[in-house]
């Protein structure tokens, strides 16, 4: 069956360290993978999109990698800050042209301690 897995346990790190979040998937062949941030009781906010032919994408303190052989994406936040504390969701598209849709993982809760 098709599955997207993210660390179900919360990730606790110290301020200033690099946070690394994992997104693994099975039985999908996504052309795109996206990462979102969600704060409690609010809608997700888009962070980064990476294409299947891209290995890495950066935006300020954020970095995403996409390994289609391992079927895995890693999301890094460098020099983490308490304000980075949130749930981070990965999402991938299911190929199908006009009928494709975006499937979300359950998210990983990141807590950055001051």
């Amino acid at each position, binding site marked *: 069956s098709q599955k997207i897995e993210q660390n179900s346990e919360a990730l606790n790190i110290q301020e200033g360290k690099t946070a690394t979040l994992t997104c693994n998937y099975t039985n999908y062949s996504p052309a795109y993978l996206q990462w979102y941030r969600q704060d409690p009781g609010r*809608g997700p906010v888009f962070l980064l999109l990476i294409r299947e032919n891209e290995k890495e994408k950066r935006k300020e303190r954020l970095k995403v990698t996409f390994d289609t052989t391992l079927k895995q994406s890693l999301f890094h936040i460098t020099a983490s800050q308490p304000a980075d504390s949130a749930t981070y969701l990965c999402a991938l598209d299911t*190929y199908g042209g006009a009928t494709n*849709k975006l499937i*979300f993982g359950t998210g990983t809760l990141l807590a950055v301690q001051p």
Partner: protein
Amino acid sequence: EAGVTQSPTHLIKTRGQQVTLRCSPISGHTSVYWYQQALGLGLQFLLWYDEGEERNRGNFPPRFSGRQFPNYSSELNVNALELEDSALYLCASSLGLMGANEQFFGPGTRLTVL
């Protein structure tokens, strides 16, 4: 530029009742997506509307339905409410195919079914 708006913010209903949720996309976006986020679960894709037509739907029963109006705003209707319908309902819009483009989410409608 105004973001995606949703109404109402909160709703309390009883089992068997019907509910209508509303969403206005970002100006210029023709696609609207609906998601359900129940406590402890990830975002579950519900419906995708584009140019007034339903393009795709997730694995939800027919009592979940909706429509998109000529101004691209959208309604989500849920009939015969069940306790497990209690969730945060999120609406999103995008410029193009959802996989290749970021989704802009609204603040959500919190539905509680008693």
